[in-house]
């Protein structure tokens, strides 16, 4: 095959496809091992496995975000805004993180009406939620609350934790948009925030546009990740 016949997009897509298959198998085997550890009462091994699974999940969500951002940049992302049940979208995001939350003993409450429907790109919004849950997992003590409601023409989704909250510097600098450099101490690249705010702004209705913000407080007085979609 001639060099120019290979599309870079296809190459990235198939490489990511391959990596995701590997990760999917890895995580599923690790989850099986973790269950066995717990069954024979090996708490410390089970906890270590939980951490490994968490990292694998993060890697996976980073891969998705990178591929999506690459496609946004090239205007080839198949944006698909359609009406979805918000509680179902939340439920599925939680199911993807279920095992790691269990390992760390984190309890999650969901506050969303069954008949809450909203027009969103399901996969992108699930991506935002998974990223927010990964963050909350990192910062929380033991509780996370996911809440969604429709308010003045916007769907407001909140992911709140009972940790110490975001550092003042992040809040002051509007961490969402300013957090661009790589912070090697925390391992944060700002990718998750950047992805989430891009996705939020891609949701439009008339003159309104989606937005992302972080704050401290909420039901538990910890960090709050808030996304509002028109």
């Amino acid at each position, binding site marked *: 095959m001639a060099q120019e016949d290979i599309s870079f997009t296809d190459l990235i897509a198939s490489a990511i*496809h391959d990596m995701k*298959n590997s990760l999917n198998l890895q995580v599923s085997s690790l989850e099986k091992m973790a269950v066995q550890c717990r069954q024979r009462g090996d708490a410390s091994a089970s906890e270590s496995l939980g951490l490994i699974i968490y990292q694998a999940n993060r890697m996976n969500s980073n891969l998705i975000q990178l591929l999506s951002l690459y496609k946004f940049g090239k205007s080839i992302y198949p944006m698909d805004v359609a009406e979805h049940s918000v509680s179902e979208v939340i439920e599925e995001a939680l199911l993807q993180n279920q095992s790691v939350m269990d390992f760390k003993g984190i309890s999650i409450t969901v506050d969303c009406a069954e008949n809450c429907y909203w027009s969103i790109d399901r996969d992108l919004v699930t991506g935002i939620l998974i990223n927010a849950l990964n963050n909350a997992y990192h910062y929380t003590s033991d509780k996370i609350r996911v809440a969604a409601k429709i308010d003045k023409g916007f769907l407001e989704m909140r992911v709140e934790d009972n940790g110490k909250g975001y550092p003042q510097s992040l809040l002051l600098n509007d961490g969402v948009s300013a957090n661009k450099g790589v912070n090697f101490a925390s391992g944060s690249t700002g990718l998750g925030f950047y992805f989430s705010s891009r996705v939020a702004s891609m949701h439009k209705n008339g003159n309104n546009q989606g937005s992302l913000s972080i704050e401290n407080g909420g039901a538990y007085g910890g960090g709050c990740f808030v996304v509002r979609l028109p």
Partner: protein
Amino acid sequence: MTVPLQQANILIIDDFQGMRTMLREFVKSMGVTKVDTAGNGKDAMNQLRMTKYDIVICDYNLGPGQNGQQILEEAKLRKYIGVSTIWVMVTAEKTPEMVMGAAEIKPDDYLLKPINQGLLESRLEKLIARKLSLNGIETAIKARNYPAAIAQCDQQLEAQALHPQEILRIKSDLLLTIGDYETAKALFDSVLAARSVPWAKTGLGKLHFHAGEYARAKEIFQEVLAENSMYMDSSDWLAKSLDALGDTEQAQQVLLDAVKLSPNSPTRQKTLGETAYKNGALDVAQAAFEKTIKISEFSSHKNPAVYAGLAKVFSDKDSPEEALKILEQSKSAFKGNPEAAMQTAAAESLVYHKIGQSEKAEAAMANAERLMDELSGKVNADVAMEMAKSLFKLGKKDKACGLLRNVIKNNHENAGISSQIQAVFESEQLGAEGLALVNESRQEVVNINNQGVMLAKEGNLLEAATLLRKAVENLPNNEVIIMNLCGLLIGLMSKEGKNEAMVLEAKQLLDRVQDLNPANKKHHEYANALARIAGDK
């Protein structure tokens, strides 16, 4: 599907052994006992042929050979799966094919990797619930009882079922199918009042297109695409509108952009081929027709017109051997299909004509004409028009005119077909003659029809029926006359009582019209009236 998840028969299709094992373990852990797996399209097709599955979990990207969408289409075409089968496509990333409206045959859902057991189980349970709630609607659609399907949609909406907007979208498709444009418009407007939803806005554009307001339709489709560049349904309709406006260059560009994003739709590739051929862009046309043949090998879109189109391209490129080779392929691909044989023979004749082998050209055309006669006027308008073009090229003007006259008579109220026929005449520098022929032929049918109506009004129902029966025999594709005869028979029976032979005759007329045009406005009314007379209701 009507069984609970645990009793379902499940097929898993994935080229990757590890994924197959993982998915199988997932469903087994859910309590499912009947699970089969397949590693490629061929194995999958064998399994689907032998076993009726309730759920198919299929990886989209299966390496070389068929992809998941092609397996789904072939399975549907071969009727290995029905409306009750749940088909879940598993993919690593979202592609334009997944966006609503991109493919004509769609899986029930897409599942993005990574997948874990909890996620898969939750999704399958939801899909089973959805299948169950849409069961009535889908069954009615399959039986082509569109009014019943619409009534079911309304029931669901009143009962505040799950996913109201999905039901609205299904309902709007049905309204467009039966040609109830007024109700469809009200539905689109009410959805669009809250936000610009691509399917509703595209629907609104379609209404303008149907009303012949192509410029307005074009604007709307462009707006949808500005907001959702991947909404392929809108881009297909934009190309259609541009074509109707005579801007075939722009239409070609829109289609080229669309196939770059979503290359695997046979209808889109075929339209691109035809449009590019009109524009004289032979390389583009060749590539598009070749791709169409490749991707529609196992689909209901497999079409002899594509082979004929490709042959014309080769012929214009001065590669007659290639052209004849393609037509040979067409012959073996459509064995036992007289309409296909006719199209192939007509195309063959043109190829021979171009290289000066007039004897072979004559022989092929004679063959095409013989097949045409055998089909006794029941060929569709597009095929007949292609045939007429070939006849003109061979200098058989009288035969071409006769054929076109017949097409008009069969479609005397169809403005689109009249203008297409006018274009055929104009390309032969026979514009004025064409116009006269179109008007004359139309008038002939109008006269017969009026005569029938007059007789009926005077109370000579039997005489009117005899007249219209003869007209239907001569013009088996004319919806208006078929429906008038049907109406007359119904009128006769309501006056003089039921008559088994007439009930049967009327039923056949109704079936014929539904084949010709599911959107026929009187169909529903007459079908109900007939059912009352026949005592079915």
